[in-house]
């Protein structure tokens, strides 16, 4: 247990950062961070040192987030259909920066899961396409295609 705690304390910021960027909700990011470390505990013996530990850890965290997304997207779409009937008031100028940031984070959270994962890992976490491909176990070309799709979706949604 102390071994797991030592690893947790060393890497928690990295894992939480990834989860927080994948979901636009702090409480959920904390839950997913905990889920990730439970998964690490359950599967560390299967880590074969055939990749960097950081790569493997990112893979575990991404899989935890992607798996938790199944089903949530359908439930969220149904809620948004109900909410759309009430239009929000226009933000004041001072609030616009925060509103823009929130809008961008929501748009990222609304991306299809794998495209979102690629965008977060490449554009927000700074990984190369080769690294993203290793983490997500996909071809580099697939990573590029997902990134293009994600950027285009965001550009049409949030760039004025």
């Amino acid at each position, binding site marked *: 247990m102390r*071994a*797991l705690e030592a690893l*947790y304390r060393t890497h928690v910021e990295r894992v939480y950062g990834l989860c927080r960027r994948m979901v636009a909700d702090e409480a959920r*990011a*904390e839950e997913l961070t905990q889920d990730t470390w439970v998964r690490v505990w359950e599967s560390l013996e299967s880590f074969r040192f055939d990749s960097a530990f950081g790569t493997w850890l990112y893979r575990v965290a991404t899989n935890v987030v992607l798996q938790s997304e199944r089903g949530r997207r359908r439930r969220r779409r149904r809620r948004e259909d109900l909410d759309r009937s009430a239009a929000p008031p226009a933000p004041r100028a001072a609030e616009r920066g925060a509103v823009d940031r929130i809008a961008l984070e929501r748009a990222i959270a609304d991306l299809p899961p794998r495209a979102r994962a690629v965008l977060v890992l490449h554009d927000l976490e700074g990984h190369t396409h080769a690294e993203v491909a290793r983490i997500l176990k996909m071809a580099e070309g697939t990573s590029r295609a997902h990134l293009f799709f994600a950027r285009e979706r965001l*550009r049409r949604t949030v760039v004025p």
Partner: protein
Amino acid sequence: MNGPHPTWERLYAYRDAELDDPERRRIEAHIRRCTTCRGRLAEARALTRRLEALERPGRPGRDLWPGIEGRVGAPGPRLVTDEGPARESPAGREKAGGRSSGAGRRWLAAAAAILFLAGGGLLATRGGGLPGSRGGDDALATRGVSTGLATAAAVERAYRPRLARLQRRVEERSEEIGFDLAASAERDLKAIRSATEEVRSALEASAGSPELLAELEERYRRELWLLRRLAAVGST
């Protein structure tokens, strides 16, 4: 003629500096003459600027460890953290002794190896691939005698290959070493390497200083001594 408009995909690749030179020059020539594509490139840049402006999330707002510990079981006391000594859980006091199964030992070995790999990265990032060591320096090192090496580069050449070999041997023997000893040694190695970096920085300002060179050698000798002791754990 401007030629065909580059696709959005090629504009993003241009923005990411991923194009080869001929294609990059073609797109630049086109953009100079095409207001539509200049506008598109500006949109692509605006998006990436907004993404880059998103703040890094940082650490979670609270310590998540208690929740994790509760889900995986809680044998043994917790580590002291930066926030202060951790409370020992009642379950931890009852379950003293930890895991003793073969699977538990393998898990601890895996965790110990990861800690060593994280520490050994310091050696790798300081520019590996140095020429091989000179013969006979091991005896001098253990006697604590300065070899009289005249430059920091010479000290590095004398010690770093041996340190790298010992680091690998320690990683291979991580199961025999065990997690507790590995964690303790990792803390000592961090302190030694931090002191080494300070001396190296000082040598950049005072190249060739005999006192600093002797100090650098002493740091490397301590690291060698510690790694040798770890590598010898459990061997006959």
